[in-house]
């Protein structure tokens, strides 16, 4: 932990990165909330889904038990990519781009 207060990094650069990362994080959170808020009405509003059977399994059931988790995996992989790219794009002192 030592040494962090003596010669800090470029604070302007840091502020820009924080803004970018916050935007990425909020986009990810919005995607999660959209799924969580949108799914119940969707399932509730289509009563035909409650009666239908796919291989003996109600589709609502299958959607909740199996359908959402892959969506989460995709969202987290997308977030990881974007957050790492944002970090890579910070100009390094070594290359003056």
């Amino acid at each position, binding site marked *: *932990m030592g*040494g*962090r*207060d003596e*010669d*800090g*990094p*470029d*604070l302007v*650069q*840091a*502020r820009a*990165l*924080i803004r970018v*990362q*916050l935007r*990425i*994080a909020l986009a*990810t*959170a919005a995607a*999660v909330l959209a*799924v*969580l808020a949108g799914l*119940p009405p969707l*399932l*509730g509003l289509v009563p035909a889904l*409650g*009666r239908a*059977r796919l291989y*003996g399994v*109600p589709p*609502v*059931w299958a959607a*909740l*038990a*199996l359908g*959402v*988790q*892959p969506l*989460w*995996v995709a*969202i*987290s*992989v997308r*977030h*990881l990519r974007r*957050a*790492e790219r944002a*970090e890579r794009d*910070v100009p*390094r*002192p070594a290359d003056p781009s």
Partner: protein
Amino acid sequence: MAVAAALVALAAVLGMTAVLGLYGGRAARTTSDFLVASRGVGPWWNASAISSEYLSAAAYLGTAGLVLAYGADMLWLPIGATAGYILLLAFVTAPLRRSGAYTIADFAEWRLGSRTVRRIVTCCVCFIGWFYLLPQFQGAGVTLRVLTGAPVWAGWAVVVAVALVLVASGGMRSITAVQAVQFWVKLVAVAVPAVALLAMWRLDGGDDPAARSVPHFGHATRVHVRTALTVTAPADTPVTVRGTVDGVHRSGEPLTLRKGSHRIGADTNLAFPSGATVPHHGRLPVQKGDAWARPFGLGQEHALYGTYSTLLAVMLGTMGLPHILMRFYTNTSGRSARRTAALVPGLLALFYVFPALYGTLGRLYAPELLTTGDLDATILLLPQRMVPGLPGALLTGLVAAGAFAAFISTSCGIVVAIAGTVSQSVRRYGGIAAFRAGVVFALAAPLAVLPKIGAQDAANLVTTALCVSACSLCPLLVLGIWWRGLTAPGAGAGLLVGGGLAVAAGVVRLFYGPWSGWPAALLAHPALVIAPASFAVMVAASLLTRRRVPRRADRAMAWLHLPEDLDNR
């Protein structure tokens, strides 16, 4: 035979734990080894350990039982849990790892420069850990009781003894190996029987669990009622009774349980013929299959509020779990911590396929659990019910092994988190000795409370722990990492209000009650009210004390967010 299989499984898990623990812990000498395994853990290994730590008694035993009793509403729990890891990935992991602190209390003190906030955080960590340990002990008790008939305290003793030995001997270093391997043990233990049971269901003709009828016994079933309880018969039900029903002693004669409520005495044997409807435990809803398979199928009072509040508690609570957060400190850098967090949803998704399956099959093959209310036993009993003879016993052993792996890995993680946080707070009294004292402290408190709280569903207890975390540590982390204006008084006020109210709700629900109507809904699921309040108090109090923003806040924010190679560390 199932008893033998369960005992062999327990011995195998303990043996594996001992070998891995000794192997991993043989080099643990310094405080850094004990707390963060000297920061040398790679993303895959750490993601397995984190998933293992998170898949506790609640996920392994609890989810299936809740699905069995309440239906589709409970499928939201796994969905919320994985969603919590996405938020953790998005808002917390990389910056928290870059802070370089050992524990979340260290982080709070470093970011806000206040010993007082540190002490409050330490209290929150203790309460979250204790609420989380209770269901692990209870789950171990239930597992041993259901499978071998041992008294419940035998299960408690096993988990406490293992955690004590393992954590005190090697700390984080020995439990990382144990937990990472135990994730895969749990996955196999839950997946292999599930595939076998699914095949049995198809061979059996595949009854529809969502059919428009109340659950009934698929074949003649004997039910042993241990402690007195009230049941609701959804229809007139023929039964043979040896024991007490509605205050009248019976010695094996047939009678009919009229539709309505009945009192069953302690130590009563009930024998139901094939096709009889299942009387439901008084606290469980009677639902036809089609309502059960539908979300918001009116399984509970105030189902909509309860579902969303639980979702919020699980999601935000996952972001603030001290034992999970501590695991990210074991990664080598912020980048590898973030990669670890991104792997976890995939691992959890693999596991969460199965509990819902057990709950669904349980409704067809082990409906007597609805009568006894022993929901946590669903996964443990199904293999014996569906597969007779030796194969059934082997599958039972496998499931039991997974269950013990679940109790042990979660308990160890929590004990390390509490002991680490407490011992860091009293650091001047000496490193490893203080850590070992903290281990005893972490285990003693829940053990003292356990005999007083009676039977509780594992998942409900864990939700209480998650709720405390959602209302205290989650706002602290999110605001501390993303908002430079957070002040020590603001954080302290928010932690006291949010954490205090959530702990109070949990304690009231555990020791008093039962409640009904809105008080019950608010006490069981307070997160939707308290978590926003906690955020609001933190922000408002920080704005009011604006002059107390730490002078080095900007520098601290830069340190948290810039990649390691960019600042001069």
